[in-house]
């Protein structure tokens, strides 16, 4: 049940500005503090939001990733990828 951890991480990108900066600089290092499955870690670092959505991550929490442009996500990239999860 580490989908909870991914949700938490997304919210921290909004709330914790130091974590946000760390996620922009070196996401692989920044997420070490979270206990994630390999699948979650890979999807997150690849910005594979369709996969994360299918795993059960909350969509509007995930929206903080493109909003603050972490994990290689921008709004256009996010838009295209999340719509593929229909």
């Amino acid at each position, binding site marked *: 049940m580490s989908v*909870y951890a991914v*949700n*938490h991480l997304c*919210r921290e990108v*909004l*709330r914790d500005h130091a974590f946000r900066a760390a996620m922009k600089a070196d996401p692989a290092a920044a997420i070490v503090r979270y206990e994630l499955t390999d699948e979650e870690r890979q999807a997150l670092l690849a910005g594979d939001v*369709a996969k994360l*959505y299918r795993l059960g991550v*909350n*969509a*509007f*929490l*995930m*929206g903080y990733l493109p*909003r603050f442009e972490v994990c290689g996500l921008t*709004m*256009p990239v*996010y*838009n295209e990828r*999340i*719509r*593929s*999860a*229909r």
Partner: protein
Amino acid sequence: MAQIVGALGVPHTPLYPALVEREGPQCETARYFAAVTSELEAMRPDLIVMFDTDHLNTFFLDNLPVFAIGVTETFKGPNDEPRAVPIYTIKSRADVAAHLRRVAIEAGFDLALAQEFTVDHSVVVPLHFMTPGMRIPVIPIFVSGHVPPLPSARRCYELGRTVTRAIESWPEPLRVVVMGSGSFSLEVFGPRIAPGRSDGVPDPDWARRICALLEQGAVSKLLEEATQEQMLRAGNVGGELLDWIAMLGAVGETRPRFVTPQTEQGHAYAAWTLS
């Protein structure tokens, strides 16, 4: 005795403050908010009770109440950085809120207690447009409308009825306005967003249907049709309708002064005056 003098339903789209700043007071959204603001001012409220669905910013998945009430003298927001909105300190009334909570619990609505909290755009965006001086105290009542299982429409309506009765049993002669904050059909950052946007309106027909039922004062029909399945089909924040339904608890079958749909955006602006 306190009395409910009116009810207002509004959207809280976090993009609106920046939109209105860019497009000016004559744009549609600015005019619609101005219309509900005139209604609010004519009601001369001493207090606002706002039914609201928080976007996992006040509460989170670690500890998520289905219903909660803010019992405090002030709270701040927004805590989620919507553009063009300052961080406001909003006054409240801890004594009245504690009374509402006591009456609600006696009636079987176990409202969680929030005494130290911040709120997100869903509370602040409507206030930013409607009470920018933040002179009117606001009591927020939080309804879990985003994370299924959702409370039923009937339960939220009954909560609204109970809050109305509680206000009417408060000895001070306060003029109280009840607000419902939220959308009818809206997907935010989920798979059903529109190309090129961060949101989308999966079910504009449902938004139109709600507006028609509100116009008619057809509350029972609305409660019947507002199933969890229908609300979620209308988008991942479609459960915000529950805030309007709780607000209707103060209104019953009274016809509104107006319902102004913005259905291509999945919501409406509405006002009820009560004598």
